[in-house]
């Protein structure tokens, strides 16, 4: 039985839509409150997990495969195989400031508020720029408005939240999308089956 961890929310909907195209996951009903679905016909168990936990479950080998955003994989710094891009859940990482003031980027001791301290740290390290990271759990848009930070690093999908808070993108960092990941050892022991799933996914994408 292959176990697949799915990030709860829009990504799990995208993933189940994709698996249904492969004639899998017939009995998975995301509207129910169940967290585990068994597809005995295809010998697959689906688990609904918090996005951050998907990578943890995959890395530890509790599940063999996972569907999660590349943002979560990068931030977690966990060691998993990235088998393929799933072509949904697309958005981008951007830097935004109040009124779109680009000048803040040249500021010494730039203060950056973010939910993604690892990604932010790595990005500015590559630019040889020292920054002060302000790690926040949510509503990062508030930080520059309150003078707590000079800018924010966050995922932007439509840009509506930024606009509503008088923030503008001053730099796009990179794209984010849903990925199929695998446990490194599980992959070796279930290579044939996993390759089969990946090949079918690539066919329908």
């Amino acid at each position, binding site marked *: 039985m292959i176990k697949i961890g799915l990030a709860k929310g829009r990504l799990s909907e995208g993933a189940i839509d994709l698996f249904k195209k492969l004639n899998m996951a017939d009995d998975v009903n995301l509207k129910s409150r169940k967290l585990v679905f068994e597809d005995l016909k295809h010998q697959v168990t689906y688990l609904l997990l918090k996005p951050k936990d998907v990578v943890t479950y995959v890395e530890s080998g509790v599940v063999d495969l996972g569907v999660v955003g*590349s943002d979560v994989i990068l931030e977690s710094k966990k060691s998993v195989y990235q088998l393929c891009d799933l072509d949904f859940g697309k958005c981008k990482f951007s830097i935004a400031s109040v009124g779109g003031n680009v000048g803040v980027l040249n500021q010494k001791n730039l203060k950056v508020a973010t939910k993604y301290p690892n990604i932010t740290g790595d990005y500015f390290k590559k630019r040889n720029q020292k920054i002060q990271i302000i790690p926040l759990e949510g509503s990062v848009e508030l930080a520059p408005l309150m003078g707590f930070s000079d800018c924010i690093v966050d995922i932007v999908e439509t840009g509506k939240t930024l606009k509503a808070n008088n923030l503008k993108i001053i730099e796009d960092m990179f794209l984010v999308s849903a990925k199929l990941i695998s446990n490194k050892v599980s992959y070796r022991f279930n290579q044939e089956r996993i390759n089969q799933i990946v090949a079918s996914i690539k066919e329908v994408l």
Partner: protein
Amino acid sequence: MSLKEWLQEEKNTLKEKEKIKRTLSQKGYQWVDPEYLMDDKVDEKYLRSEHLVKVLDSQGHLKILRPECTYNLIDAIKDDWSGQILRLQYDGVIFERKEGEIKTQRQIGAELIGLEEEEGDLEILEIITDLSQAISGMVVISHSGFLRELLDMVNLSPEDEVIFMDALHHKNEDILRSLNLKAPVLEACLKMVDLQGYDLQEISELLKDDNITQALVRLKTINDKFDGKVSIDLALTTKFHYYSGILCQVFVKDCNEPLILGGRYQGLMPGMKKDMTAIGFALDFETYMRKVKG
């Protein structure tokens, strides 16, 4: 666990340990006990510093608690070694700093020093495949010379080298594509991470480098010799940077880290004689026991 159960478990552990040590002894491997402490001035090229456990000795000198046994074992013999073949085995605890804690692991390992490369590789790989069969392990080999040549070929900054190796190891096509590699090198790298497997000949033709071809031929020869008992993964990487030839790792189900790590090394440390080549392996004994117990 009751005291009785614990004592029984310790008894079983000792029995298994003795079994492995006896097998190695029968093949001529003499037991040695490498030093626990290492000098703080170890070149970071050989041991990554971020996981090392450092302590102060009684004279206030900074020392490292060994993160593996091979380094100290070679250090102990390198000055007196004069070309003889040495078969050595050890059983010891190693130390690593992980998530703010000091982790220990008991290792049983063997080092074969001075025997000609081809013969030496086969002898150690035979021991490794025998050990891994007992626990249904999967033996995967690669060649560190191949990876080193590939790194020279891609000619990246030290930061991008880390990203490149990480992308290869994690089969991350997107990152490989973002590194502006030359077309044939990128194609070869994408084949290396391709899930459907790859033909070594194809990789060799794309990279067109004598040392790479030599490393791939060596891998193919070993693979043929072991007839399905080992598989090749060119993207296999290791945390120790001193390997110079065949690399080997054994994986077991439900265990994230390789159960056995091994490989050939030359120039392990400053002062190691140029003709002093060796191959060895270390087995994570606690995980081995968990697998034996099922």
